[in-house]
């Protein structure tokens, strides 16, 4: 074990570190961003992609079909790598400004479209072919798919909707609504505006 003085030094160094890098939410430094863009350009070298696609963590890309990725799409790293798989004959499009947290799994055999400014929480998953059913998946603009949600084949998620954490979506979600549950049921967003905030 370190001596008392070493401990004090260590604690001071830690405080300094905390002061400098005060919060995990602080935006990425320029260097990190540049490294992310460089990593993305290597990971997505076989893929049609726009400018400033950023991967701060590892992404496993299997491009047997056609993948198109828009500008400034972000892939964040974490404890589980993200998986972007497009099988032969598949067509996967991810529009600009979408963000993917760690552990997202996108498995495309026919067609998956992800709109602009979508947010994918960690460990969420989208697929268009399952054991018993298949169909194209369309996720429109500004959709937030929260942690651990699963979007099943043949589903269309409307613009501005939220898929709640842990939900499993089997049916279409109308625009500006919240899909919640397993199987997911959709609730209009205007109903939620009057609801109490989290934890109360």
């Amino acid at each position, binding site marked *: 074990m370190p001596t008392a003085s070493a401990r004090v030094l*260590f604690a001071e160094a*830690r405080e300094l570190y*905390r002061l400098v*890098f*005060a*919060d*995990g*939410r602080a935006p990425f430094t320029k260097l990190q961003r540049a490294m992310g863009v460089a990593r993305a350009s290597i990971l997505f070298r076989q893929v049609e992609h726009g400018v400033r696609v950023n991967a701060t963590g590892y992404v496993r890309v299997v491009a047997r079909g056609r993948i198109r990725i828009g500008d400034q799409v972000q892939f964040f790293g*974490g*404890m*589980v790598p993200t998986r972007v798989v497009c099988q032969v004959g598949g067509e996967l499009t991810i529009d600009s400004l979408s963000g993917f947290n760690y552990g997202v799994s996108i498995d495309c055999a026919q067609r998956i479209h992800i709109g602009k*400014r979508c*947010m994918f929480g*960690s*460990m969420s998953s989208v697929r268009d072919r399952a054991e018993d059913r298949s169909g194209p998946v369309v996720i429109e603009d*500004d959709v*937030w798919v929260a*942690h*651990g949600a699963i979007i099943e084949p043949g589903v269309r998620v409307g613009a*501005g909707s*939220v898929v*709640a*954490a*842990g*939900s499993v979506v089997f049916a279409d979600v109308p625009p*500006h609504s*919240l899909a*919640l*549950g*397993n199987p997911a049921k959709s609730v209009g*967003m205007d109903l*939620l505006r009057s609801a109490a*905030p*989290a*934890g*109360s």
Partner: protein
Amino acid sequence: MGPGQHPAMDLSIHEASIMSSQPGRMSAPISGLSEGFVARVRDVASRCRVAYQFRNCTRVGPCPEVLGRLWVHGGGRVVFGQRVTLDASCAPIEIHAFAGAEIELGDDAVIEGGTSIEAMRSIRIGAGCRVRMHCKIIDGHFHAMDGRRGDLVPAGQVVLEAGVVLGPNSIVVAGHVGEATVVAARVVVTRRVRPNAVIRGFPATTESRRVT
């Protein structure tokens, strides 16, 4: 077996006994060094590793056990009680307290791999809790439901009282789970759950109340 006597505890002795019973395996000691010496070196190495993994914690009680990768991030307060077990041998454990937030882990708590605990305000996990694999415990939604998604929304609090068991893949968002409640797999908890209950499904339903 008491909660503090996890079978994998006291790793050095355990490994030493394996080494002596199976000579010539991958973990065989280098010739010329006694088994006791090798075991001691391993023990010191694992202690150093654990000390490094706990470097961002504010306070850690005696006899913690860490297997695998533990990530403690952020500028908040992270306090572990006595004899906590963080078993990340299958997947890493992520503990993230934002600046000003607080995460408390009670005595004899067990956290399994793939679990992510993120606090913007306060998360308290009681004594003897067991959080199973790939759980997510957060105290707020992190994003606004509609409008500008980048905006931070005010966080709530998470309290898991003593003896709660969280099933694999379950998610707690700003909930309060009563004492000794069992939460089944893939349940999402967002509000207050009574003590001594068994809840399952999503949306969650109380399946039964255990007689104590």
